[in-house]
Each structure stands twice: as structure tokens, then as C-alpha cells.
């Protein structure tokens, strides 16, 4: 396991980044943003693959493979459905750029 202080540093910085990136989102995009964030935690697939790759006992392997299937559904389905929603937003003229909004300097 990694040094606890390093882990804590990583967590604290990630919390601030997480707060920062979504703090100015318009309510029009709440559904796609929720769906996109939902897809990102599907990355638990990496964890499921690791445990499945280390499972020796058939029972443990079965449970691990179930976890792989569930995580894949979360990850792949999440990104696909988010893309479908956003496709509809994108199929028209680009949003009228509103002064101030969306111009946050990054």
C-alpha cells in the first residue's frame, strides 16, 4: 500500500478538482453531466479485472466475473448513453455564446 500521506494528498486535491469543475454548470446540462460522471465511476472495471485476474478458486472467479460484467455495463453503457444525449444538443447551430457564461478562462 502507498504511503498514507501521499494518498491523503491525492484525495484532497481530487476533491477540490471535483468541486471546481462542476461548480458553474448550467441546469440545461445537469442530466448529461450526471450521466457522464456516472460513466466515470464505471472505471471500477479496472479493479474488477484485477481481482478476476487473481482469483484462484472457481467461486471467487465467478463472483469476480460478475463484477466485471456489472462494471462494464456501467462504464460502456454510461459513455454511450451520455454521447447519445449530447448528440442531440450538438445537432443544431452551436449555442449562442452568452457574454460571460462559459468563458472561464481555461
Amino acid at each position, binding site marked *: 500500500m502507498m504511503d498514507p500521506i501521499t494518498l491523503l494528498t491525492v484525495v484532497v486535491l*481530487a476533491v477540490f478538482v471535483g468541486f471546481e469543475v462542476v461548480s458553474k454548470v448550467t441546469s440545461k446540462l*445537469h442530466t448529461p453531466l450526471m450521466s457522464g460522471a456516472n*460513466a466515470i465511476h464505471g472505471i*471500477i472495471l479496472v479493479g474488477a479485472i484485477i*481481482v478476476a485476474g487473481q*482469483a*484462484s478458486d472457481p467461486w471467487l472467479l465467478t463472483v469476480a466475473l460478475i463484477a466485471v460484467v456489472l*462494471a462494464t455495463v456501467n462504464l460502456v453503457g454510461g459513455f454511450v448513453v451520455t454521447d447519445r444525449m449530447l448528440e442531440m444538443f450538438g*445537432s443544431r447551430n452551436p449555442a449562442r455564446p452568452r457574454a460571460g457564461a462559459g468563458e472561464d478562462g481555461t
Partner: protein
Amino acid sequence: MSVLGPGWTALFYLVAAVCFILALKGLSSPRTARRGNAIGAAGAFVAVVTVFLSAKLENIPLIIAAVAVGSAVAVPVARRVQMTQMPQLVALFNGVGGGAAALVAVLELGHSEDPWVRLAVVFTMLIGAVSFAGSAVTVGKLQELISTRPLLFPGMPVLMGAVVLGAVAACGFVVATGSVGWAVALLVLGIVAGLLLVLPVGGADVPIVISLLNAFTGLAVAASGIVLGNVLLLVAGTLVGASGTILTKVMAAAMGRGVTGIMFGAFRGGSTAGSTEQSDRPVRSSSPEDVAVQLGYAQRVVIVPGYGLAVAQGQHTIAELATALAARGVEVVFAIHPVAGRMPGHMNVLLAEANVPYEALKELEEANPEFPNTDVALIVGANDVVNPAAKSTPGAPIYGMPILEVALAGQVVFLKRSMRPGFAGIENELLFDPKTTLLFGDAKDSLTRVLGAVKAL
């Protein structure tokens, strides 16, 4: 295979983590949202390839088969789901993610000796199980497989207390002994806690709960990163946990509610107030031709679309009606309540699907000051978002939620399926107002007939 050394592995995981940050950042603005999502997917792909190339893995063919099965299930569902059923699908994907995190933690218990790591194991299991079961209930409520009204039974708070105490005890035993039996008990208790937590939540508040459970799953994934010593899981999970928490608060604020009020309101009682029965008080019902005259000779019409429009798949017809009215010189705008539909921002997705121009969509703050200059407010399949009870009836489930103030318009026309109350289960006084007329029927049918009548004017 161990093609990649630890240094390269860490580097590729960092690339994936940066992709996730850019994805969330991109999703916050309409212009960059789709690209953001694609960046996130690319990051996930990099991470999955990296784990195959870096860790010493057995069973690789079976794992690849499981990934293929998961994709084969998820892609067609995600491609074909009706836009109206989007909230259910997001909740479902969230639930299975939580379930996967809980299973990963159980399996890692045997490899965990350090008490701190075991603490992360029990945290992942508990939160993952709560998220799994809670999401299942939200799916049931949104599909109306179970009642959308808050579900409470006598002794529920006592049972909840007992479950929480039991879960804490089980956590203690697992951390102290590493016992798999207690771990399974903890999973079961987590599932029961998830059910008890979400069953009492009223239908109107379900979207907030989905967002909250999304943040929960993020935290479970973050804790699983500590369990597995994997920094990517830790960072990605924390990102989702933090951004999901903020998003939940923002959404709750849009509804004028606090998150704790939503989660525990029913336990305290009072949030189930309001009429459950259909009233037989007289209303003024109207014909499609009358509605067409009202709309066609107005100067300014504001359309308030709601979930009923989406259910009837009427978004294309309403877009046509707006075009027909605009051709007659009527100014037509859509007033979109932040929670119109069944999830914040849901209605924007539906109207975007029907090619309604972005400029015609007004958010609540923009729309409300304009109602006094509006001749006709046309409410299609919406109820709770225009219900004055939100302002006038303390104790109503929606009390305090900002509403679209359609009562300030000259005339109010409701297209409604029936007199059944809305998702929140409360009657709308506005239906009985003298300036209100109602046209009953399926939203799409009614719109088609109104559209025909407008064209014939």
C-alpha cells in the same frame, strides 16, 4: 502479462485520470460537452488496456468474455432507450457500478491484513451495497413498478436504526477478524439500508436521490482504490464523489429543497401531506378549435412542457405547433423548469431531440418575469412545476420549490391526460381558476388536433 513496468503503468493511469478531469470540465459547457464525454471514454479505454498490460493476470480469456458480455448488454440498451426513460437507465448503470465496487471489495478482503485497508473494504462494501439497492428502488419508482409516493410503514425509523447499528457492528467484526461471513452479513445489511433509505422518498425527489447515489458510488470506487492500492480508482472515484455532491446540492437548490430534507423528510412526517384523490370540483374544459383560436390570435405564447409531453412522444408535434404559430406572427417561447421531465435538464434533452431552437428555450429565471406580458400560457403534460401550492401550502411535498408563474399570464390552457394529480401526488388549485381551460387527452393527440385547427384558422 507484465509488459508495462510500474512507472509506465502509473504514467498511463495519470493520463486516464487527466482525461476524466477534462471530461467533467467539458461536460459543464454546451459547446464542449460531447468532446468531453469522448475524452472520458478514451481515458477509460487507456486505463483498461493498461491494466491488461501491467498486472499479472490469470483467466484473461474469461475476463475478456465478461467484458464482451457487459458491452453486448449495455450498448444496445444505451442506444435504443427512449429519451423519456433516460433517468431510469442512468440510475440502473449507477446501481450496477455500486454493486461491482461492493463485490470487488469482498473479494479483496482475503488479501487485506492491514486494519486501515480493511476499513476501506467495509466502507466500499457498505456504500456500494446501499447505492446498488437504492438505485434499484429509484428505477422501480421511475418505471412506476412501485409507488412513487413516499413509502413508509410503522416502525420504519426503528428498523433503520437497528440496521445502521447492525451494519456498524458488522463493519467492526470484519475489520477485526477479516471474516467473510460477517462481510456477507454487511452486504445484506447495506442492501436493506439502501432500500429503507430510498423507499420513503417521494417521486418528485427521486432525481436528486439518483444524483446522490451517483456520488455514493464514486466514494465506494475511491475507497476500492485504497483497497487495491490503485491510484486511478482513488482519483476517479473521488472526482465523481466530489462533483456528484456539488451537483446534488445544485439540483436540490433548483427545487428549493435541502438534501437532508429530501432524504429524511418522510421520516419526520408531513411530506406526505396533500390530496391523493381526484377532485370532482368543476373545471372548464375546452375543444382543440377553441385552444387554436386562443393561441392563433395571441401575441405572445409561452409553452410549458412537462413529463406528460415526453411520455406521449409529443415533442416533435409541439415543435411543429410552435413553428406554425410563429408563422402567424405569434411570439412563442418554451419555459423550461429546471426539473421538467423527471431529471434536471431532462426536458432540454427531449426538446433538443425535436430540433426546437436553443434560443426559444427559456430557463425559469428568464421566463418568470415575462409571464405578465404573456397572453396564453400553454401547459402540456406538466403539473407540479406550475403548482401554486409550492408557494401557498406549507407542508405540501413541493413547498418551497420555485415554480413557473403561469398564473400571471392572461389565459392558462392545460393539456392534460386526466385530473390525476402530478408525480408529487398533490392537487393543483390552478386547474380550478376561472381563467384556466383544460383540454383532456393524450398530449400528442391533443397537440395534433390543435395543430390542425391552427393551420385551418
